[in-house]
């Protein structure tokens, strides 16, 4: 039987295996070496691979992203750790202005195959600028890919794929799921496919679309709906925020005629909004009811005393499914 790992351990396994496979892979970030990262994601790697490959950088996000771009241009495969998602914007200029554009700026002659991984999202009682979920802001940058796993096994496989991908990939790790549960993760390397959504559970009554930490209340809601109301939910884990696998989502919605999207991030200008637009573009006439969005609010991510109030939960999801079924 494969060992049961937490998401932190699974990500660590992916890093270790990719570093063993390819000596161009180097890690850089704040406190990732001797301290092994504030969430211990890089545990043991500094010891195994040395300070030259597990680089403890000075405290400077733009410098980290900017130097990683140079490493990638010169043929390395840098994997950045940004300590918390709220700090990524200090490196955003480099991401948006350079990592995302080198390929198109030079018509493919220069490319920047780097991975930027970071914990994101609320639910871990952290302080300000530690709990943001801004995937849409990053996914809105042409040239960046954005990936969000929802469990240990997919995290390992998708991170391996991200490291091997030819483009800059933002790999957002739901901090709430880091140690939330264990899953069997096979020892031999598994490599996922970016740009693909995963139909986690099939059903004919309503399509429930989510990703990251929000897969947890979505799964629980789907269970409850089946048990108590006999509602058969088709549950889709988006996994790849950009590029977005529209086909899998619209195919499902065309069958069920109803859709609820669950996201932690603020509602406006969000991935949920984009998914609604694509559903309207492609399968509007098959819809039996307006698509529902369950989301965070358009407010600054609150300090931790209020984070539970901010985040979607089963009750809100079930109410939205009720709305979708009522019409």
């Amino acid at each position, binding site marked *: 039987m494969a060992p049961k790992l937490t998401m932190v351990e699974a990500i660590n396994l992916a890093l270790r295996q990719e570093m063993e496979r390819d000596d161009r892979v180097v890690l850089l970030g704040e406190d990732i070496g001797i301290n092994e990262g504030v969430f211990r994601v890089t545990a043991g790697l500094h010891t195994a691979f040395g300070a030259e490959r597990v680089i403890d950088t000075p405290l400077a996000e733009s*410098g980290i992203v*900017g*130097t990683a*771009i*140079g*490493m990638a241009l*010169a*043929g390395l495969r840098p994997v950045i750790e940004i300590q918390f998602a709220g700090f990524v914007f200090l490196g955003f200029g480099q991401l948006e202005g350079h990592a995302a554009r080198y390929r198109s700026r*030079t018509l493919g002659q220069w490319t920047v195959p780097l991975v930027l991984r970071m914990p994101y999202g609320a639910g871990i009682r952290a302080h300000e600028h530690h709990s943001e979920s801004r995937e849409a802001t990053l996914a809105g940058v042409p040239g960046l890919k954005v990936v969000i796993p929802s469990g240990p096994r997919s995290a390992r496989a998708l991170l391996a794929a991200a490291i091997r991908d030819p*483009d800059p990939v933002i790999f957002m790790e739901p901090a709430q799921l880091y140690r939330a549960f264990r899953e069997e993760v096979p020892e031999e390397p598994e490599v996922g496919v970016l740009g693909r959504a995963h139909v986690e559970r099939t059903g004919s009554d309503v399509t429930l679309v989510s990703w990251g930490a929000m897969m947890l209340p979505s799964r629980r809601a789907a269970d409850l709906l089946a048990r108590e109301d006999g509602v058969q939910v088709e549950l889709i884990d988006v996994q790849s925020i950009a590029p977005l696998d529209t086909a899998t989502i619209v195919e499902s919605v065309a069958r069920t005629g109803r859709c609820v999207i669950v996201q932690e991030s603020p509602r406006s200008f969000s991935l949920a909004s984009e998914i609604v637009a694509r559903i309207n573009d492609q399968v509007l006439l098959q819809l039996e009811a307006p698509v529902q969005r369950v989301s965070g609010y358009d407010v600054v991510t609150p300090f931790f005393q209020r984070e539970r109030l901010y985040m979607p939960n089963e009750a809100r999801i079930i109410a939205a499914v009720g709305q979708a079924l009522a019409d």
Partner: protein
Amino acid sequence: MPLKEVAKFSVSQLQVLDEHGQLDEKLDPRLSAADAVRLYEAMSLGREVDQRLVRLQRQGRMGTCPPCTGHEAAVCAPALAMTDRDWFVGYYRELGARLMRGDSLEQSLHFWHGHEEGNVQQQPGRTLPVTAIVGAQVPHAVGIAYAMKYRREQDSAVVSFFGDGATSQGDVHEAMNFAAVWQVPVVFICVNNQWAISHPREQQTRSETIAQKAIAYGFEGLQVDGNDPLGMYLATDRALQRAREGGGPTLIEALTYRLLMHTTADDPRRYRSDAEVERWWKRDPLPRMRRYLEGRALWGEAQQEALQERMRQQIDAAVNAAEQAGGWRPDVLFDHVYGTPDPEIEAQRRSFLGSLPRAGAVDGHGA
């Protein structure tokens, strides 16, 4: 309260060839005749192309471009000191040096004309394309230098150019700090032309020199007369040597002056005096280099006339070729967003192509 001195610093300026063409024999880098002539010809070509670009822009045949007049020694001499194995990480005001590095003039014209095609080098080497975000390229240079060190490449180093305005950017600070901590083979060349558009150097930083900033990071900083090609060559050559030998970074402040406008869209008379500009024309690096060549009996009127004619032909040919180029696919912009196919982008490409009035190509010129 007794104070104890804990550290003491000084900053020097290097000049080998002064504005009167006087050579400091002790410091003479003794360029070979071929190299000395190559440097002068490259500086001259940079100047000549500059003049033509400004004229073409005025005629509506070229996009906005940033003239390099006055910077020829500061950028071409370092390019001469570099080998093909060294990386050139520049900004946007080093055209003459980029041509020395193998960029073709025609390609450069495409770039300033607004075509991505102008960024594609015919021989992919170690010259990064032009960047517009001020200072952003400097951390890239440091990352590349890290990769050199990681691969134990002892025959190569990275040279990064940026302006005095760029030194105010956090990225330049972060890059220098990283480079020092990592001890990577990089040479920072700050082309201090004393103006960032209309903002004078004295209001950019209260440091007396740019060179002294290196001291704070823990590596050597040196000011060089940036209009002195031999001084710039010597300083870069030494810094590259040190970098390749594992001695870490160096900051070279090339003290020079931007003789023309910031870009063709700028009117410098709004913010600086004619007298100041006049003073700097007297230190023009070109006649200085020519006098040096003449002193070594490597140059004369006949060579100058022949060079002038060669450059005219070369530039005419490149401008003609660039203006005749065309037929570029408009949907090339959908080709390189990702290295992997994306159905959404392909759908948008079809819709874009369908929306064009005719199966049109991108116009070859016309800004």
